[in-house]
């Protein structure tokens, strides 16, 4: 499909454009958030404890007098770093393992797919709480944990793609003229299957953001006082009846960002795969 048609399908889908706007706004906030935050996100201010939303404090202040709006702005950077970092790492591991398994088949494929089955049959949240909890929290352990539980998503997807690609006639032709496996994988299989991995990423990033926020909410992810959406919401839990704004606003922003990615991912999938689009 040519790029112009692709673009037309994409922009016709208003929800996808709406999603794209949210995602771009989110990325912008992740970059400039800490600079435009009106207050220090970490330093307590005992003069203004639990103040409701006002012109000075758009989202109110928390139990230590910190501006919730500033904390949410700074939290965007963590959400973005985790979402992108996790998906890039799990993508590299999952895509390479998946393609190797699908392309070579046989024993490699068998072993890898059994491991994938095993990883996918363990409740990811339980496994993540155990691993992240035993590390004791922090950004790097959180990312490692999430890569461990999620590489199988990409591996399964790409294995199926590589399996189908391997049967194509041009691969046989490439083999016939003496191309090495390495060359075929890097020059033919990977470029022909990677677009699906990219579309899948736009649906995997919101998952990673949501999942990491859940872990931080439980208390095994990013630890307070570092402003991260999940742990801001957790801190607002104890003040739900007296200061509803602490938990409400970060969650609203989190939901909006995840929704934006999902709208965008849906639109991208429709645009790239007209077969799927017909039914939706």
């Amino acid at each position, binding site marked *: 499909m040519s790029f112009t048609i692709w673009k037309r399908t994409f922009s016709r889908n208003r929800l996808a454009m709406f999603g794209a706007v949210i995602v771009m706004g989110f990325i912008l906030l992740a970059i400039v958030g800490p600079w435009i935050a009106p207050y220090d996100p970490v330093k307590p201010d005992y003069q203004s404890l639990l103040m409701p939303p006002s012109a000075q404090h758009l989202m109110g202040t928390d139990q230590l007098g910190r501006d919730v709006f500033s904390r949410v702005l700074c939290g965007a950077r963590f959400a973005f770093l985790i979402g992108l970092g996790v998906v890039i790492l799990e993508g590299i591991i999952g895509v390479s393992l998946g393609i190797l398994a699908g392309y070579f088949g046989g024993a490699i494929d068998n072993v890898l797919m059994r491991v994938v089955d095993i990883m996918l049959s363990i409740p990811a949240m339980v496994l993540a709480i155990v691993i992240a909890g035993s590390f004791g929290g922090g950004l790097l352990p959180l990312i490692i944990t999430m890569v461990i539980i999620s590489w199988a998503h990409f591996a399964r997807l790409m294995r199926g793609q590589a399996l189908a690609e391997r049967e194509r006639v041009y691969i046989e032709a490439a083999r016939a003229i003496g191309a090495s496996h390495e060359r075929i994988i890097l020059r033919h299989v990977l470029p022909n299957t990677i677009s699906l991995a990219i579309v899948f990423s736009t649906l995997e990033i919101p998952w990673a953001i949501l999942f990491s926020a859940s872990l931080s909410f439980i208390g095994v992810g990013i630890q307070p006082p570092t402003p991260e959406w999940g742990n801001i*919401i957790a801190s607002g*839990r104890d003040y739900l009846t007296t200061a509803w704004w602490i938990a409400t606003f970060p969650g609203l922003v989190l939901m909006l960002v995840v929704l934006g990615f*999902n709208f965008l991912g849906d639109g991208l999938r429709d645009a790239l795969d007209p077969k799927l689009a017909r039914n939706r």
Partner: protein
Amino acid sequence: MLNYLIKRTLLLFPVLLGVSIVVFLSLRLAPGDPARQILGPLARPEKVEQLRKELGLDKPIVLQYGIWIWRVLHGDLGQSIANRAPTLLLIKERIAKTLELTFAAFLITLTVSFCTGIISAVFQYSIFDVLASVSALFWLSMPSFWLGLMFILLIAIRIPGLPISGWGGHFWTWEGFLHLILPALTLGLPQAGTFTRIIRSSMLETLHQDYIMTARSKGLAEYQVILKHALRNALIPVITLIGLQLPWLFGGSVIVETVYSWPGMGRLLTTAIFERDYPLVQSIALIYTLIVVIANYSVDIAYSVVDPRIRVD
């Protein structure tokens, strides 16, 4: 059929072996000595050494796994450090409550998604369909822990008599039912978003098949065409999805139990991990995984009953 049953049952063993290895290793990924982590940095070295012996940490890791799995197979899941009680006993008290919550949530998921998915597909591109599709995305983007807090804030606090948290008795008692509603909705509704989308697209696909036209042209009532001919075939991808979503359902229950202080296994897991009660953590993770593996096995068997084609592969 029997062949498939045997094959699927035999396949359970490598999976069980695999998950037990992953569960065992998951606590050993963090650097440092578990005994030292349990006792804290101030504990005397003799104490740490004693605990190492007690937990068998002084042996090579393969042997440790062997001893652990041997005991598990004999029904001994170890002693909880914080509670000084067999972990299996602690889990036994909690497991029914977790199952109660997940079943109720799953019932909500299926009811909501089947109703919306089928109506959406039958009236494709109607206002209902458009609204349902957008709200499905909206629900599946919802952070469940935040949704739980919003339910408490917007519903539980406003309605007198509706409990904010905890377990109020078995679900068939009025008190128990009232306690169950909000946690089950919190866990069930976001999942319903995913299911609605699959049911809708699967229904649309079957509704465009030739045999549906045949059914219509031979004069069957529309409800018969939809419920008997289309729905039964549309169920197949839904059953696959159930198998895929089960781990998420149980994982999600850990979060919801934390939000509502629901005294189930998930709550036990989060307290155990903060108390560094590693034998208990390991046992809970294993039980969760066993539940999911067995549930998946049952789903596969059900799958082969619904779709005879599966048995052939």
